[in-house]
């Protein structure tokens, strides 16, 4: 038997239609329903005593009823018979994510992405030198403290069991699964359980996620965002309820997220401010959380900010030392995400339309619903600003916000964050569509989601960014034998396979694939990212390459592996001569004979031993503590449980005392 309590003040607060099993609520301006059932032609609705809760947003003909819960979210508590709207369990969503991404990751599809080998390269170094972040293999030596290490260290740990490549895929899978869980938890702050579950399911099929995982290989962005989003609900609860456990969890998760990627700091800011605003909107909602004062919320937000900044500063201290010793002063490197997408349709497709996919259709709904509901306005404005940033050079907004750092950032990651913020709205829209169109809507939504994801993955084929794969083993083999590693090498036209060669060989290169770590003046003085792809940066790229070749003797740069004949004239005129060919002539080795062996270089950036120790323990330690905190500190369970409507059980309605 289900026992419901009903307020004595509610005497005519509902309208029940027994034929259609539809109801409409229209007098709960200061009450909200928590349960509904029927007995004969009567319906009973549980009404709380709390003031100023939001009025359930029931539309005529809608077949469900909401409740507020301890998280400040809204849950569907009753569904009319026949509606396919169902709250999907997190387990089901994770299984879907596993089914969709698991095979692609097991096929190691991201290995052909732009940056996957970069991360494997970093991880490979940690796997061999956990406590020594000095890596001589790129830029004639650089410190890996220039890049927060957590994702790379996780890959390194995984690689001990399953190898480097599969280790990368495993960590990427973790990121995808964490993102689905995070989106569910995050969406619950804004929408009810059903819509949140739809949002989480949508996260599996995000076009932007597909692009970042399978085209860009931005593991750190996806993992960092997933961890950040998982920490946001704890932050909200800390603001509302001031429980130390929530503060501890949100703090540890936030610091862990920062240890994945430096730009996660921007992610944290973009996701935190709407939630602070939401906590202020909800401050008088006592539903299972008690009232909170405005001052209290703001003070708790400041407390969280201070301790988080302190935590991030401490855990990533070697990063900050490196950052402040070598501030970003290099010439801006052009990136297509900084172009105007309206004027350059290909970039618009690549960086906005494909990542957004079917979510574009939801944008009018986001504007209408996001501006209409007070509780959704913070999320709407957060999404709107993030979307404007994600548009890159299409609007002046990112330039105004970031100043000179505008040229440091790339903007596809902001589109990814914007799509994550759009998902709660998409969940709401899906819920409404299903309520109205039933199975037709379900089919259409599945097709839209699958098409969005498929386009994101297939875009690799339509617009390939990676070079055609070729066998790099003979190149690594050459460098590893006969003391050839005494000299430094360069590749031209290898694309991301340069990183693979770097992993496989013990020889060092003057080139590298991580812009921030570049300190060699031949590279920082020119607006080109990588010597390997110098020609794509026009005059800057080729002048950078010329400058490097001019100083070949100083760097011990003897071997140049050329896969693109474009570079051959320069090498020929500069004194290199072809020596060997590999893979059926695809790659030619050019050699300069009068180059002396390379000498170790230290541009004053070698981290101290204590930095290596801290780097090897603090980030991974914080992540471990965050995991322990989430597992061991119990969450407060909601005091109310949704009941089915119409209930199959007898319901006793009684007056509240």
């Amino acid at each position, binding site marked *: 038997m289900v026992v419901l309590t009903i307020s004595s003040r509610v005497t005519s607060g509902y309208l029940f239609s027994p034929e259609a099993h539809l109801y409409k609520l229209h007098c709960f301006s200061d009450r909200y329903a928590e349960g509904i059932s029927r007995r004969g032609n009567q319906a009973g609705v549980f009404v709380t005593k709390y003031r100023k809760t939001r009025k359930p947003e029931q539309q005529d003909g809608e077949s469900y009823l909401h409740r507020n819960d301890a998280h400040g979210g809204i849950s569907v508590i009753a569904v009319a018979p026949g509606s396919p709207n169902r709250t999907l369990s997190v387990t089901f969503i994770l299984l879907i994510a596993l089914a969709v991404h698991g095979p692609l990751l097991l096929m190691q599809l991201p290995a052909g992405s732009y940056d996957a080998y970069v991360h494997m390269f970093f991880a490979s170094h940690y796997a061999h030198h956990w406590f020594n972040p000095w890596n001589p293999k790129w830029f004639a030596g650089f410190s890996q403290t220039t890049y927060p290490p957590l994702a790379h260290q996780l890959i390194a740990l995984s690689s001990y069991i399953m190898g480097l490549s599969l280790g990368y895929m495993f960590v990427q899978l973790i990121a995808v699964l964490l993102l689905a869980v995070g989106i569910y938890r995050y969406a619950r702050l804004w929408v009810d359980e059903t819509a949140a579950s739809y949002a989480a399911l949508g996260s599996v099929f995000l076009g932007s996620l597909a692009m970042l995982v399978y085209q860009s290989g931005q593991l750190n962005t996806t993992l960092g965002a997933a961890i950040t989003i998982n920490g946001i609900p704890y932050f909200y609860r800390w603001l509302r309820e001031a429980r130390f456990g929530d503060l501890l969890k949100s703090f540890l998760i936030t610091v862990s997220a920062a240890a994945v990627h430096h730009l996660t700091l921007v992610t944290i800011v973009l996701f935190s401010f709407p939630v602070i605003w939401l906590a202020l909107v909800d401050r008088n909602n006592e539903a299972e959380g008690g009232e909170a004062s405005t001052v209290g919320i703001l003070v708790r937000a400041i407390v969280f900010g201070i301790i988080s900044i302190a935590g991030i500063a401490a855990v990533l201290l070697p990063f900050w030392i490196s950052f402040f010793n070598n501030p970003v002063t290099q010439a801006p490197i052009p990136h297509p995400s900084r172009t105007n997408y309206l*004027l350059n349709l290909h970039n618009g497709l690549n960086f906005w339309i494909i990542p957004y996919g079917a979510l574009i259709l939801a944008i009018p709904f986001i*504007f209408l619903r996001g501006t209409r509901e007070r509780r959704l306005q913070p999320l709407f404005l957060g999404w709107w600003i993030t979307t404007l940033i994600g548009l890159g050079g299409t*609007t*002046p907004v990112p330039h105004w916000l970031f100043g000179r750092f505008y040229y440091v950032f790339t903007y596809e990651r902001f589109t990814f964050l914007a799509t994550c913020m759009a998902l709660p709205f998409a969940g709401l829209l899906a819920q409404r569509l299903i309520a109205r169109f039933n199975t037709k809507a379900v089919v259409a939504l599945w097709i839209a989601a699958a098409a969005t994801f498929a386009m994101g993955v297939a875009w690799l084929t339509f617009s390939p960014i990676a070079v055609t794969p070729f066998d790099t083993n003979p190149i690594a083999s050459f460098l590893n034998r006969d003391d050839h590693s005494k000299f430094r090498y360069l590749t031209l036209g290898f694309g991301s396979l340069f990183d693979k060669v770097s992993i496989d060989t013990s020889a060092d290169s003057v080139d590298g694939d991580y812009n921030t770590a570049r300190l060699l003046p031949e590279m920082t003085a020119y607006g080109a990212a990588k010597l390997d792809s110098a020609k794509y940066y*026009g005059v800057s790229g*080729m002048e950078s390459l010329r400058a490097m070749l001019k100083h070949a*003797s*100083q760097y011990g740069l003897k071997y140049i592996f050329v896969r693109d004949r474009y570079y051959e004239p320069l090498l020929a005129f500069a004194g290199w001569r072809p020596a060997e060919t590999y893979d059926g002539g695809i790659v030619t080795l050019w050699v300069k*004979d009068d180059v002396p062996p390379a000498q170790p270089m230290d541009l004053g950036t070698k981290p101290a031993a204590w930095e290596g120790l801290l780097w090897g323990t603090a980030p991974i330690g914080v992540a471990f503590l965050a995991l322990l905190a989430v597992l061991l500190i119990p969450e407060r369970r909601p005091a109310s449980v949704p009941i089915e409507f119409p209930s199959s059980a007898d319901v006793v309605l009684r007056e509240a005392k």
Partner: protein
Amino acid sequence: MSRVLLIITVALTILFLAIGTLSAGNSGPSNTPDGAVHAMMAQVQARNWNAAYSYVANTNATDLNSFISGLNGTNGDLRTFSNLASVRTRVLHASDNDALVHADMQWSTAVGAIYDSRDLQVVSQDGKWKVVWEVQKQPNVPPQVIPVTFLRWDVVTRGSGDDWGAQNVDAPHVRIVSMNAVDYEGGTVILGEIVNEDTVPGFVSVSATLVGKNGSTLGDESSFDKISHVLLPKEVSPFRIDFPKVPLREVKNVHIQPNSLLVPASADPTIGVLHQQLTQDSSGRRVLQGDLTNESGQTVNIPHVLATFYDNQGRVIWVSDGYVDHALLPQTPVPFSLALRDDIASRVQTYRVTVNQYSMNRQPS
């Protein structure tokens, strides 16, 4: 409130998109003479050849294919390894119907940036400005047989396991026959000539170290591409080593290190230099002009001209170089032009031109 927020955010979104698009797409109007040149060059930059050709006025004299090959290159010449990077224009003369626009074009090429200047006639046709684009007509050489009589040296190595260059034989004897250090634009330039005195070809390079007054090393550079690296027996090459950030007054000593290595080589292709003369170009600068003729039977894709200038005492006072952006077809003259520093032009007594080359299908190995 909600409606106000909706209106504000939609309006701001449109405004931001408009600002971003207008500022990014501001390439100037094409209804002016220099605007037309810019518009055409923007299409060239984007390799939209048909759109670029729509700005050509003299379509009866310049067909689309000639227009494309003039800008996009043919025969594997330097232009085929080039992209237009930027254009600056200056209107020299303008009337209602025609104008003369000076265009300075910067090309990003496989050997670095090269610059090309043209005085373009622009005419008004049907109310629209168009560019009179002259193309260089390639003369048709009649079929002929060219006998191959050049010398060639091969090197027999011990086996494929040897490193390239590690022949374990004495290096060819090379010698620096002249050297001069000059002050140039606040930096130091080391000039000179190197000769292969041996009876076998040599692969040569020259590096220099500048030593300061307190004995410290001020810079360490090499001749890079300002030298002919492969020298046949008795052949002389100029070299030039730039130290752009080291003032000559700070230099006490210069250590020159010539390096040589025995390599296989051939005298082919032979490139003749004809009609060379010091003159002035249209902007009044002193230039060395002439024609290059490929006397062999195969195409030379990228010629590189090195000019050595001597004063009346026979000292090397400057070395200038430049890449020619057209391929040298057999027996077909191609003009070249090298800029000469105005401040030394009056001191130049004699000069010597040598030609280095890159041929796609003839790289020594």
